[in-house]
């Protein structure tokens, strides 16, 4: 059910007629000191997807959908990795570092997939 939310979020993004979430996350970042709209959109999608996934996980825990301590602990671990990856995207965006931004977006895509797969 919660995974369907994240799929719905990706569907909403594609409904906008913009590049799909994976395409935006994999897009080429701008060069130094030349941010493009794609940079903001990539970072925005990464942050929004993270927020949706972590709110979904929190709701699953609060409502008792996920109750085993080991499952909750695993979600905590995956959340920490996903947040660190999104934070790296944010820092790379802020520092105008195109190379680290591209790497960070790839890592964010991977860790967010791991987090959403956990619930």
């Amino acid at each position, binding site marked *: *059910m*919660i995974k*369907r*939310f994240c799929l*719905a979020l990706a*569907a*909403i*993004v594609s*409904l*906008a*007629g*913009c590049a799909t979430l994976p395409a935006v996350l994999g897009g080429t970042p701008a060069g130094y000191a030349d*941010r493009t*709209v794609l940079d*903001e*959109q990539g*970072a*925005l*999608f990464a*942050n*929004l997807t*993270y*927020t*949706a996934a*972590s*709110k*979904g*996980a*929190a*709701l699953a*825990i*609060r*409502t008792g959908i996920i*109750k085993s*301590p*080991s499952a*909750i*602990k695993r*979600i*905590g671990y995956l*959340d*920490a990795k996903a*947040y660190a990856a*999104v*934070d790296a995207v*944010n820092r790379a*965006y802020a520092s105008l570092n195109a190379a680290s931004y591209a790497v960070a977006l790839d890592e964010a895509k991977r860790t967010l997939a791991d987090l959403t797969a956990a619930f």
Partner: protein
Amino acid sequence: MPKLNLSTALNLLPVIGPALASAPEFIRLFEEFGAALGSSDQAVLKKSLELAQTNSAHAHNDLQGLVAQHAGT
């Protein structure tokens, strides 16, 4: 780039089930970022990104707090 249609987005909420569909934090998420996601205005995107980053941090702290409470970490 066409703007995101917020009512279309909200129509998808029933797909995710009533528990999540009625959760105010998801409705708020769509409402806050619906316009930005369909925008090519860099100023709008930058402002939305700042807000999204703040939301990420809050969501992270909230989830980690829950994990600590329920999993004893």
